[in-house]
């Protein structure tokens, strides 16, 4: 008896040794900074003199005075609300088409996925060139059809839509996930549906879509979280302009921290971002019972 409990204790000790790097990392790089960030959000801090406690005034300023805060929130929300559903709809449709026992599936999948592996500055520069109003590819193609293209990233009206169009280039990243979801559907379901005389559309409506709602649900949450964190493209291509038309939330946060040296205010902005993401996730989770189907769960 004694030796068993000794063995147990030894295993327990070993486990914590294995966890040690993560535990230290959690304290130093996650928990510690979170607490520090709560404190900083209540201070005025410019990195050079020590932080000055100012209570809730950062948040008061943000909500009641700072028009750019509201503006950046609006820009980011529009981007999120338009681009995330578009990504899901296009990605899911393409995945459905790829799932039709297509010849050359591997080729299509490879090509579609490619934009998802190249990201960051080089892609931003490439799209800046493609959407160049005078010399770019897009306006050249449009002019072939007699259309005078807009000024894209340089236009107050078009800059944000151009970011959305650009983001659709990497829609293929989700396709692999949907395809994996389709693989998980038991074939018996389709067979028995066929016996009952179901056609392609019925199978899609009553089997494929309902059974892949958990995948769609996950993509929705990840998509929204990702869309609220857009930074690199906006920083490189427009730096928030023209006339703040593409002042994404994280870009505004970066400007406050590293350009205006308002670290306290930037921390407060970060916490509001966190609150937004948590709220959205919770709302989606709450409504998910109505539309997400989990096999083996009582309805």
């Amino acid at each position, binding site marked *: 008896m004694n030796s068993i409990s000794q063995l147990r204790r030894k295993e327990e000790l070993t486990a914590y040794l294995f966890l040690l790097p993560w535990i230290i990392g959690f304290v130093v790089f996650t928990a510690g900074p979170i607490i520090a960030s709560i404190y900083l959000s209540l201070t005025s801090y410019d990195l050079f003199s020590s932080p000055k406690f100012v209570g809730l005034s950062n948040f008061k300023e943000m909500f009641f005075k700072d028009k750019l805060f509201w503006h950046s929130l609006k820009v980011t929300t529009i981007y999120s609300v338009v681009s995330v559903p578009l990504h899901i709809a296009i990605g899911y449709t393409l995945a459905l088409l790829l799932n039709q026992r297509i010849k050359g599936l591997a080729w299509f999948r490879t090509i579609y996925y490619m934009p998802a592996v190249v990201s960051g500055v080089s892609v931003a520069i490439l799209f800046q060139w493609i959407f160049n109003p005078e010399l770019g590819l897009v306006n050249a193609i449009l002019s072939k059809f007699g259309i005078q293209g807009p000024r894209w990233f340089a236009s107050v009206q078009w800059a944000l839509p151009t970011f959305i169009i650009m983001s659709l280039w990497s829609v293929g990243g989700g396709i692999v996930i949907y395809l994996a979801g389709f693989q998980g559907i038991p074939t018996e379901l389709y067979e028995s549906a066929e016996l009952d005389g179901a056609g392609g559309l019925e199978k899609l409506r009553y089997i494929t879509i309902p059974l892949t709602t958990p995948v769609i649900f996950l993509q929705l949450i990840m998509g929204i979280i990702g869309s609220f964190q857009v930074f690199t493209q906006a920083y*490189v291509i427009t730096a928030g302009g023209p006339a703040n038309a593409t002042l994404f939330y994280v870009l505004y946060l970066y400007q406050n921290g590293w350009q205006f040296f308002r670290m306290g205010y930037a921390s407060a902005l970060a916490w509001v971002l966190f609150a937004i993401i948590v709220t959205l996730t919770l709302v989606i989770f709450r409504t998910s019972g109505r539309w997400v189907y989990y096999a083996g769960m009582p309805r």
Partner: protein
Amino acid sequence: MKKVRWRESKKIRSILWNTIVYIILCSFGVLVLLPFFWMISSSFKTDAEIFVFPPKWIPSKIMWQNYPQALTSFPFLRSLRNTLIITIGVLIGQLLTASMTAFAFARLRFRLREPLFILVLSTMMIPYQVTLIPTYILFKTLNWVDTFLPLIVPAYFGGGAFFIFLLRQFFMTIPIELDDAAKIDGCTTWRIYWNIILPLAKPALATVAIFSFYGSWNDFLGPLIYLNSPEKHTLSIALQYYRLGMTFGPTRTWAHLMVASLVVMLPCIILFFFTQRYFIQGVVITGLKE
């Protein structure tokens, strides 16, 4: 007679449907590839031809010299070296410590296993912007700003919740009897981890290594905040500065800029062609993309 015709019309319909499917798939494929082709085409153009409108797909004169010109005015080798130091440093740290953490969660019994694992998962929910500022201040007080340390060192402390989760899911699929048999043979837990689990988990480790590579290679905000002096710049930061040089700097034309962007992008594309199955595997194990 009627039945035959019905079958024929069904066949025609299926051919028609297949054609539509292929047309849609191919046109989307073309849309995806077009920017890449445009990039390659632009990179070979003369200054004059860049400004021709409407543009030509195939330059009338292939300017091979754009490549050596751009790669000497763009600090390619120096920023490549910096990027590789960070990428490899991070990769080793993440592989090692994420697999250790995942091993404990997947194979060892301890009282706080469930709550701690939930803690790991919940750290995925916290946007990095929340911890960004205090972490920056921490590294600034350590005098680590303008060194690679802030970008590399954190990778050695758990390697990130996503990778822990991915490896844990994979480790769970390895039969536990292997551990028991090894224990009876007198193996220590460390040897089970190093000599049994890690070799069996090579595919999952490869997936982690690849995702880690892409994460560091394409990272922009981290190097932007921490690396100030040009000698420390990574490829993505150097590229951003090269772009700014269009107005008054070493970048002469869009062609040069396309060369530089292409060179930064190319390793990612080549690596992807060779390692595709690991991407798909990562997706299948976790149900998430990066």
